[in-house]
């Protein structure tokens, strides 16, 4: 298996507060990795570091063999190889759904307007929103917005997709459609690193789970092992709070 993302001993602090204290992991092609842990455990910061939105204090990050933590690399060209969806406010409100998707295709990849529009329609078909191409984001439901955001994130065929709690701001009845889409992206072979509070989904869809606690990986392993036979006490306490003692 070829590694898509490799993290080695990542450290990051904001002022005096250490947020990440030595995170290492290796994500293979086509693998889905779930980051779980309490709020403030460093999940989002880790994703932002991978996307070079935050500068790490120590350690190294590789993307398909390239050391992207090297200050000599151009961060914009690295970010073009990574797809990201945040919790909310992903879509540009002044652009139609279709324009949201074609923006990076025409302005970063350099695709012609016609080709980009064609590709946007393919993607919208893929996420089941083909008939909404000319709509503006404010007329879409939260779930539909996140599906468009996912379509936009995979438009440039990124090497890895980073999902930062993409269902946390949704009404419960809208969560399903978004998670279904993520599941089908996995089936297509997309490499995904996702921070999530959806434990059931992480257990079903993730190949591996990393439990973060106070900036370190307290426990990691295949999803069913971490969820069914947690070894670390911190993981046990966390999972009990989330899933109830009946697990």
């Amino acid at each position, binding site marked *: 298996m070829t590694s898509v993302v490799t993290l080695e*001993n990542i*450290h990051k*602090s*904001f002022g*005096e507060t*250490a947020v990440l*204290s030595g995170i290492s992991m290796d994500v293979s092609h086509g693998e889905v990795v779930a980051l779980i842990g309490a709020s403030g455990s460093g999940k989002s910061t880790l994703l*932002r570091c991978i996307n*070079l*939105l*935050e*500068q790490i*204090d*120590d*350690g*190294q990050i590789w993307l398909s063999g390239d050391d992207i*933590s*090297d*200050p*000599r690399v151009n*961060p914009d060209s690295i970010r073009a190889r990574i797809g990201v969806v945040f919790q909310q406010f992903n879509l540009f409100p002044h652009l139609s759904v279709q324009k949201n998707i074609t923006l990076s295709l025409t302005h970063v990849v350099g695709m012609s307007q016609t080709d980009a529009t064609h590709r946007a329609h393919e993607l919208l078909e893929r996420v089941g929103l083909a008939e909404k191409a000319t709509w503006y984001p404010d007329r879409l439901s939260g779930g539909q917005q996140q599906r468009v955001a996912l379509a936009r994130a995979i438009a440039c065929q990124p090497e890895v997709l980073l999902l930062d709690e993409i269902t946390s701001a949704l009404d419960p009845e809208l969560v399903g459609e978004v998670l279904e889409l993520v599941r089908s992206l996995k089936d297509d072979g997309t490499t995904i690193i996702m921070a999530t509070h959806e434990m059931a989904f992480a257990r079903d869809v993730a190949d591996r789970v990393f439990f973060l606690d106070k900036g370190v990986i307290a426990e990691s392993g295949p999803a069913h092992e971490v969820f069914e036979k947690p070894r670390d006490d911190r993981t046990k306490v966390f999972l009990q709070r989330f899933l109830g003692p009946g697990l």
Partner: protein
Amino acid sequence: MSRHEARRPSSIELERRAFRKNQSAKSVAISFVSTLVFALALWFFVVNTPGWALVQRSFFDLDVMAGAWPRVIEGLWLNVRVLFFAAIGVLILALLLATLRTLRGAVFFPVRALAAGYTDLFRGMPLIIVLYIVGFGVPGLGALPRMPLEFWGTIALILTYSAYVAEVFRAGIESVHPSQRLAARSLGLGYGKTLRLVVLPQAIRKVTPALMNDFIAMQKDVGLISVLGAVDAVRAAQIETAQAFNFTPYVLAGLLFVLLALPMIRLTDWYSARLRSREQAGSLV
């Protein structure tokens, strides 16, 4: 915390830091040199223009500047005093206008319309015309006790700037999320208390950079009271210019106004940067 401090950076990280330091040193050097080159080029161009010698004598004469200093600085003191009272007056009147314009309900229609009409009128009317009307027209009525010219100048400034600042306040009040108002009313706070204790504190915080910007604009418009004949810095410079047949006093007054504005400009920059850094939480882009 101790774990964080005890950790020693890896050699890779040290190399990266050295590279970044080197890069930023290079950027600083390049921008410094390019600024210097540009300034020198501009200087040489100006110095070599055919009329430079004449312009230098009539605009940058140090002896004239020294001679004009006492009178201009005394005039500036008047500007500062006018600014002080005008700023207080503007804050009070603008807050009142903004509050009136945001009142709900049909009963308050006349009040809202009056406030709206006021801001329409004074945002449209050039300050200099307001100065003439207030400075010469109102005393001409003969119904009010005699007041110094700078008093009427201050009133005119308050009238005009309140209209602008009221709109800034109103934008701030309307930008506070409706849920905040509902939450306050749910606690049993009345309309006035909701406005005073919940809405206005948030609104003012949001519009502070815009308010500071308006203050800076007013700081220099204070110089316009000279058209009424009040001996402020601009008027004093005009008198000195007429006596010395030299424009240097105007340059002096201009520089003094810039010096007066600088602290506020820096403060505004600092405050906006602080607001921005809070919102972005230290991200790189």
